[in-house]
């Protein structure tokens, strides 16, 4: 709050140029305008503040808030995330399990995956364009490639921490074959699984934003909105979208994956509380 008011205050007093870097009030205006609400918090305080004086020919078409750019972008990105992350989980979990189960496979794929993990996800964009073209599949490709290595590696590492004693105890009690996997190893792997999913999600979200930023397809996600802001030299919109990306990512992590992880850890007695 203090930082925000100092920042805003500096603008009001020194008159920085808002097209180089926006004040919080400009960012607020930009966010609301993407929601089809016209405000002018960033204008000098006059009698009609913060209402807009006169028409804004550059602004988005008016309509109800639920048909606004922003809502559509968030929805589009969410749908892509769900689909892509789903594929990513499937691939990552399968390969992570396989690498844990067969050491030869791990020796072959392990270093490769670790290397791939260090590759920034936007580096998959050119390949996606050439292979799939500039379309939804291209974006999903970037998302999956950017996240599933991380899931596989994290899961494999987590599975390796399962005490071998559980396996022996299971065998002793007659859990053989698939029963050993279903009733002993699968539940024992839950902490590793949730950790890998949480990590995988942050990778997936970052990759998706990167992919959307570059691959401009018909439906605009949050990344595309960021790019729109750049092409129209709207710094306030750029900053507004960046803040939104952080918020969406944080919300999904805090109320989704962190919750899940906490519940599993509490069950296993791993949590500090």
């Amino acid at each position, binding site marked *: 709050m203090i930082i925000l008011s100092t920042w805003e205050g500096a603008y009001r007093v020194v008159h920085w140029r808002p097209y180089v870097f926006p004040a919080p009030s400009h960012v607020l205006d930009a966010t609301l305008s993407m929601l089809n609400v016209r405000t002018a918090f960033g204008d000098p305080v006059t009698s009609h503040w913060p209402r807009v004086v006169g028409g804004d020919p550059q602004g988005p078409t008016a309509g109800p808030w639920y048909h606004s750019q922003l809502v559509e972008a968030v929805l589009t990105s969410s749908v892509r995330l769900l689909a892509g992350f789903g594929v990513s989980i499937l691939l990552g979990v399968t390969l992570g399990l396989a690498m844990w189960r067969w050491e030869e496979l791990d020796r072959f794929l392990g270093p490769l995956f670790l290397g791939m993990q260090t590759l920034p996800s936007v580096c998959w964009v050119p390949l996606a364009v050439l292979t799939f073209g500039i379309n939804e599949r291209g974006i999903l490709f970037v998302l999956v490639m950017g996240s599933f290595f991380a899931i596989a590696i994290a899961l494999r590492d987590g599975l390796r921490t399962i005490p071998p004693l*559980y396996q022996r*105890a299971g065998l002793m009690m007659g*859990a053989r074959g698939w029963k050993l996997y279903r009733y002993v190893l699968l539940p024992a792997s839950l902490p590793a699984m949730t950790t890998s999913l949480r990590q995988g999600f942050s990778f997936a979200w970052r990759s998706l934003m990167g992919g959307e930023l570059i691959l401009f397809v018909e439906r605009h996600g949050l990344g595309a909105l960021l790019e729109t802001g750049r092409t129209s030299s709207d710094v306030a919109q750029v900053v507004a979208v960046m803040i939104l990306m952080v918020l969406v990512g944080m919300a999904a992590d805090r109320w989704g994956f962190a919750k899940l992880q906490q519940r599993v850890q509490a069950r296993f007695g791993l949590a500090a509380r």
Partner: protein
Amino acid sequence: MEQLVRLPQQSPQRIGARDAAVVEFPTPAQGQVQPPRGQGRGRLEMVGIDKNFSADGKVPAVRGIDLACEPGEFVVVVGPSGCGKSTLLNIAAGMIKPDAGTVRLDGHRVKGPGPDRAMVFQEHGLFPWLSASQNIAFGLKMAGVPRREREDRVDNALQMVHLTHSADKLVHELSGGMRQRVAIARALVMDPSVLLMDEPFAALDAQTRTLLHAQLQELWIQTHKTILFVTHSVGEAVRLADKIVILHSHPGRIRRTVDVALPHPRNFDSPDITELVRLVRKEIEDEVNRVNAEMAAEAAEDRWKPSPAGGVGDHSVDVGGGI
């Protein structure tokens, strides 16, 4: 020791017990019935067991182990760390394959781990994602026991280890002693032929351990299970065992078998127990010193020497006779 009473012919079926002075306690042992032994199921036989840690046979873990547990017998294998006693137990459980020799349970050859040889581990090995009662029910579930019967048997098992009030607790909510009691209940509920225990009380504090010794004796008298118990503690061995098997290291071999002809349940504070502990401890010390001296001599001579053969074998001495 004015309380010593000579009771000949009390347990003539046991080796070395014929001429032994058998110690009887004034309280509370009198009137207690010893569980019947030598009948029913639960005869565990290990014949000629060899196991090496390295594939070329240069690092032997155990050598030429012959060990038989009669049905209902409480056998304790005692020895210093690294003598291969846990290896031996894991071979009996079927978790480790021996390089030579066979393990038979009631005449059937043991091929792998299974619920007929239930095991209690030192680190309990309970599943943290299940409650105490779910942990106990696990083996029955795997065996396909119907839910109704499963619940009854789990309730029984919980009662046996006095944990009915903690049935729904998660593993991390239980104390160390309670965890081991759940582990014992989890093993017993499957009605195994043999109960294998791998230093189950080693990680507990002394008071809890004593409490669990008493409870284990009580359980054993109730259930008449064959128990093969491994420990490094001579005190524990003397408190619990019908038969103490002393294992020596480099490689693990059975050097002595000691019958403990004290009736159950035992008074752990009795001077007879203390005396027996002293004697068994001396046995082990003498052996360790002898092996050390031999190894030193070998090193001094700096040439290969066959391993000591004199006096080696399955000698049975009744140390109780010396009291």
